[in-house]
């Protein structure tokens, strides 16, 4: 659906994007992840045809962004970082204007308006002037604007920034409900968001792609070993020694609290059963045995903390 090949974007002497290539299949939800200034917005602007790349090719739904911008624009719904709203218009007037410049005829306009207003929960405020709406509603109007012509590709630049937790959940649910029928790219610097809604994460750092994978795989890739946390009730001086003799256990150390242990085991060797048996047999009183999951936060930190000097 989306195919990006060797795209570079230069702003004067600054290389905002450096030889980026990736492709996204139909119906996928993909997150662009990266610190501020990594090149997320630039990538999105190039995808939408707002600005051309310095070099490289971008194809959306089979159309080249430079050669057939008209077709590309028809296939894309775009929500920029700041929702592009005319504050003096009412929600309805605004959406009518947008659907007209997106090329909908009168019949389609009527149908789509109704669907979109319901889908984005704007029915109550459709007669109100956009300038008087709250931030959450404005974001929804922005989303409605991107959806109005039912584009197969949706590009959302930080769709949940500045919203309160309830609004964030609402917008995320809305985005999730669009999956399958739409191919969605969204950018975010919130890792939890990427994990919550996306099947694939593209991590961008300093204009380069440092990783493309599913959130789970990214986590798995990063750890060479499985970490377990163990808490027992009784103080047992010989326990540490005994634990390290269990097959598969590589290293045992005392945890931050008394009577807690951090156990490192080999990947693929599930030692939990043996561990439980040992603790119970020794009468130490098993309180907790849990696996430490590597969060996307950790992955992100490792991948974006490059020791490369500034270019």
């Amino acid at each position, binding site marked *: 659906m989306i195919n990006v090949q060797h795209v570079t974007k230069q702003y004067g002497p600054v290389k905002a994007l450096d030889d980026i290539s990736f492709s996204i299949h139909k119906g996928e939800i993909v997150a662009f992840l990266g610190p501020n200034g990594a090149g997320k917005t630039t990538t999105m602007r190039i995808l939408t*045809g707002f600005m051309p790349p310095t070099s490289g090719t971008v194809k959306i739904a089979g159309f080249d962004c430079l050669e057939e911008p008209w077709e590309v624009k028809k296939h894309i719904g775009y929500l920029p970082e700041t929702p592009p709203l005319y504050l003096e*218009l009412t929600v309805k007037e605004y959406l009518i204007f947008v659907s007209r410049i997106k090329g909908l005829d009168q019949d389609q306009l009527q149908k789509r308006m109704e669907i979109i207003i319901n889908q984005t929960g704007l029915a109550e405020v459709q007669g109100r002037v956009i300038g008087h709406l709250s931030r959450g509603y404005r974001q929804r109007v922005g989303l409605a604007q991107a959806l109005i012509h039912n584009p197969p590709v949706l590009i959302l630049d930080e769709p949940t920034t500045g919203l309160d937790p309830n609004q964030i959940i609402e917008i995320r649910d809305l985005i999730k409900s669009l999956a399958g029928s739409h191919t969605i790219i969204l950018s975010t610097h919130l890792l939890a968001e990427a994990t919550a809604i996306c099947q694939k994460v593209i991590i961008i750092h300093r204009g380069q792609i440092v990783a493309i994978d599913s959130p789970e795989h990214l986590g798995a890739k990063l750890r060479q070993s499985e970490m377990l946390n163990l808490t027992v009730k009784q103080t047992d001086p010989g326990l540490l020694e005994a634990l390290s003799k269990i097959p598969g256990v590589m290293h045992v150390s005392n945890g931050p609290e008394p009577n807690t242990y951090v156990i490192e085991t080999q990947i693929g060797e599930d030692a939990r059963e043996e561990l439980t048996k040992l603790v119970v047999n020794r009468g130490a009183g098993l309180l907790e045995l849990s696996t430490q999951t590597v969060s996307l936060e950790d992955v992100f930190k490792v991948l974006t903390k490059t020791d490369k000097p500034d270019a």
Partner: protein
Amino acid sequence: MTPVQTIIAKELRSFFVSPVVYVIGAIFLAVVGLLAYQAVANASNQALRLMQLQNTYAQLNLNEMIFRPLFQSMNLILMIILPLLTMRLFAEERKLRTFELLLTSPIGVNEIVSGKFLSVVMVYAGLLSLTSLIPITLSAYATFDWQPIYLGYLALLLQGALMLAIGLFASALTENQIIAAFLSFGVILGLWVLGAISTAFGDTTAGSILAYLSFTEHFERLIRGLLNVKDLLYYISGIAFMWFAAHQAIDAYRWK
């Protein structure tokens, strides 16, 4: 609706919900009305004096005494107020990021520029048409030649359209409305001053080029009642040039 009509409809809506148009319109009409009153009062004074002097019914040329100076003054007022009408056209779109919506929609830059230009010309034409009450009212009490009045309005329309096209271009250059207004004011002022400079060069080639570039000579000929293809061509080519420049400015904004 064609894309251009869609843009025009949206722009007109935006113009009339903002107070700017009403304030500018009110000031324009009030000043023009006062100037017209002053010109008429002045003319009737002179008529009285002539009657006392010659003891006959004086035949004054009202076109020369009232309308020509009035049109000249209106031109000066337009130089100040029209930049205020065009300043937001593109600057606001850039500032509010709505430009991203327009430029990522299947609609051409030429359609956006045309729609914006036509909408502001319509607003101006509406304002201008209100001042036609002055000759209409006056025609009930005096006789004058209508031909120079028609041409005077044509001149004001073209002159205004040229200034609006300059303002449109200036607005496409920046996201700051104040800068856009001063920029267009500066260009318009420059074109006006060119006329004055040209007289210093006299009848040389440079002088006639400068005189041609300034709108003064073209405007003066039209309000005197002389219709000349050369003058119409000046305005049309000037507007076309500014339209093209605005188009280029927007392309440059995307490509940089």
